[in-house]
């Protein structure tokens, strides 16, 4: 990746001249602002960055950025981004997708990008609905959800993007709420700095087709009680009064009140984002309301060989080891001359 340029960047530098067309009140505005701010802090110039998206409201994103960008086809952004990154490894590549784009039609490409650990920053805007096509249920919609295509309530069991990502061997997992800049900024910075595929689930509000999908946990008044900010090396503490914690016994996490039954911070589960074994990250991914606060921040950040670097290293090695003469290649192993 390119070294940061030593000057002050403005978030506006990363905005294109196009009018932003999301619905007023859409959570995507906050995400856009947050990303532009994060890029400004990062200090990498726009020509070294690319945003590649699929199809969905999320995927209009590249048009609003002043970087290189490609608005592709439904579900396929990670695959397109993989080819792009292998050939242009010096570019910082962001993938913008949604719960339908990444988890329904794009499920296959999503898991393989994570499996390969391609150096992509994958932003999944999860609003639990299909917004662009005006309101069908998605793979993250709850059972019983009434939508245009499920008037009697959805009978589809949803799955959990974070758990899927862990199953796909993801090396970096994070979660943030669209309007929570305090969490989003460090998460974006950490993702940008991660070597390999960085998956960020952004809990996003679609105020037109699924308003309040995350209200139970994301609303300012309840956020402190309903979410837990994970910090590497820190015991898991949450609550408006910071009086609650997560303790883990074996593979069973439990919510405890600090100060009750002699429980102190010393008894709490200390977050280790670098745990090579993904079991605990998986347990974190299963933590959900109402019993548990939803983890936000960086859940996992481990190192593994990076796909695009490995491809290019292997090629470099082969180039150094063997002469590459085109005429010899054309002549083949056995040739003969006539006349």
């Amino acid at each position, binding site marked *: 990746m390119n070294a940061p340029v030593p000057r002050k960047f403005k978030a506006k530098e990363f905005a294109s001249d196009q009018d932003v067309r999301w619905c007023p009140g859409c959570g995507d505005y906050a995400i856009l602002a947050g990303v532009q701010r994060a890029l400004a802090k990062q200090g990498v110039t726009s020509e070294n960055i690319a945003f*590649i998206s699929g199809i969905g409201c999320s995927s209009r994103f590249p048009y609003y950025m002043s970087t290189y960008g490609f608005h*592709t086809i439904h579900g396929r952004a990670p695959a*397109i981004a993989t080819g792009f990154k292998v*050939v242009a490894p010096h*570019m910082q590549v962001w993938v913008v997708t949604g719960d339908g784009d990444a988890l329904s039609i794009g499920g296959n*490409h999503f898991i*393989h990008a994570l499996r390969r650990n391609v150096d992509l920053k994958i932003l999944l805007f999860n609003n639990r609905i299909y917004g662009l096509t005006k309101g069908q249920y998605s793979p993250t919609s709850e059972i019983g959800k009434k939508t245009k295509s499920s008037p009697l309530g959805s009978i589809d069991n949803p799955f959990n993007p974070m758990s899927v990502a862990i199953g796909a061997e993801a090396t970096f997992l994070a979660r943030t709420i669209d309007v929570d800049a305090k969490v989003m900024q460090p998460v974006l910075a950490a993702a940008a700095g991660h070597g390999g595929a960085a998956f960020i689930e952004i809990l996003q509000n679609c105020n037109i087709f699924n308003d309040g999908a995350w209200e139970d946990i994301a609303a300012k008044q309840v956020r402190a009680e309903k979410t837990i900010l994970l910090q590497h090396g820190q015991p898991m503490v949450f609550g408006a009064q910071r009086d609650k914690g997560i303790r883990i016994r074996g593979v069973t996490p439990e919510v405890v009140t600090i100060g009750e039954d002699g429980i102190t911070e010393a008894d709490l589960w200390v977050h280790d984002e670098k745990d090579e074994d993904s079991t605990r990250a998986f347990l974190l991914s299963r933590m959900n309301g109402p019993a548990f606060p939803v983890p936000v921040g960086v859940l996992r950040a481990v190192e593994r060989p990076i796909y695009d670097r490995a491809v290019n290293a292997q090629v470099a090695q082969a*180039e150094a080891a063997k002469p590459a003469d085109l005429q010899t290649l054309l002549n083949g192993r056995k040739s003969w001359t006539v006349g």
Partner: protein
Amino acid sequence: MQNKATQQLDSVVVRFAGDSGDGMQLTGGQFMMASVIAGNDIATFPDYPAEIRAPAGTLAGVSGFQLHFAANEIFTPGDAVDVLVAMNPAALAKNLGSLKEGGALIVNESSFSKKGLKMAGFETSPLENDSLDDYQLYKVDLARLTQDALAEHGLSAKEVARCKNFLALGLMCWLYERPVDTVVEEVTARFGSKPKYLEANLAAFKAGYNYGENSEQFLVRYQVPAVPDITAGTYRNITGNEAIAIGLVAAAQKAGRQLFYGSYPITPASDVLHYLSGYKHFGVRTFQAEDEIAAVCATLGAAYANALAVTGTSGPGLALKAEAVGLGVMTELPMVIVNVQRGGPSTGLPTKTEQADLLQSVYGRNGESPTAVIAARSPGDAFYAAYEAARIAIKHMMPVIVLSDGSIANGAEPWRVPNVDDLKAFESTELDTAEGLGEEGFQPYTRNENLARPWAKVGTRGLEHRLGGIEKWDITGHISYDPDNHHHMTMLRQDKVDRVTGSMAPLDVIGDKSGDVLVVSWGSTYGTCLTAVRQLQREGKSVSMVSLRWINPLPADLDAICNSFSTVLVPEINNGQLLKLMREQFSFNGRGYNRIAGQPLQVSAVRDAIVDCLSS
């Protein structure tokens, strides 16, 4: 020692047939190399079964390798077989129908056991009744001969049995006076790392050769002299898939770019991926994707990042790739899509040849999504088809589909190796600086005389832009739903493809420029059509031929040429797809000859079809 007579022949068609595990492809390949070194022109047709290893001795497991070798220029692997080498009853049952009356039938009699006969559907052994009286039958006890030859080699019974194909090869090499040194050299090159097997194979080979020399059955040897008057140059043997692979490497080198090949294994295209995977020292990046769609999508991403971006597949894969190819058309990115056609529809006949993806290639995307389509006509020609596709894709900033097929992919022929310096130069619209741009900055959809837009080098300051699949304003590239603009852009995308005619050479008419019948061939029917046409021309008939390299757009001179003949015959291994395409674009008196049987067309059948045209 008997005095054996030698007879001279102009051409021989041999078919080796046996169980999948009998090594028929290997044996055929060795005999082919020997023939090539002997100076014959050759053409091959490997006939693989679809199953990887069907139960031994069954009809489903029969694998064949046909080789036509001659003292003159030939273009097809041959309609009917002169010599059938049948390693077991199933191979005999399956292939006897192709053997000429009076042809030589060499059978491995050791395998004609009760069990073997039953599996092949024989009530009684054909070796013992008169059912094979129409042929010259030679019974060879391959099993015993191989055991005798390898008695001292310390091999297991199974290992010994596996060497019998080399014994058969030795016999055949004696029968046709093939250069033994070449075979020994080739076998050594192939098995050098396994001395035990190398020794055994060579011993079996020599034993087979000596058997021919000493046997009372084989009283005549045959000589097929070298082809005189071959154009001077360096030659090598090549299959279509290998030709495509090295054609793409050559293109990348001449274009000064990285080659990115995204693909998913599919019969009969997988070997292109295998070859390219071995060319990392040429800077080739191969990507074995999770599926066909990921393959073409990664390729498109690589195209955006300025690589020579190629994907390869067969018919079913092309169907999956349609949406992504459409995105390439819409964003006007250079990309090559190789389709090695096979029998369809659906899963079809994966190991059999067909040409039925023409219309899919020309039309198979949503909306008005014109795509250039180019076809290879023979194994060696596939090099040039792939190279030209890359050149046109980059020159015109568009996807280009290359059509090959199973018989080209796996067939082999001697090929005159081009000099690297003689290969056509690449032109591109790559832009690597923002200097000189006006105050509007970089506009990704400005165009040159080919209507090609600039190919911005990603990572260049000042050239940042966004591409997308939604319709956009010409010039600026911003999203547009404007009605007039959409009509304009639709026509422009068609115009882009039409302008490729400017990069085409004039059509080469083989024969008189006007006359009774014009045969229009495309793809692998080339050799068959040429053979039939040349035969009829020698008989004084007014028949000519063109072989189309470009399918879309069709060459500008095709209309006038077709209308210089009373009848135009379009032989195709499909139900009339090129004929349909031609009829759409201009009027002419045309008809098709169509046989969709998973096999190359027969020279005699095409000849009959031409004669039909002549008499009507």
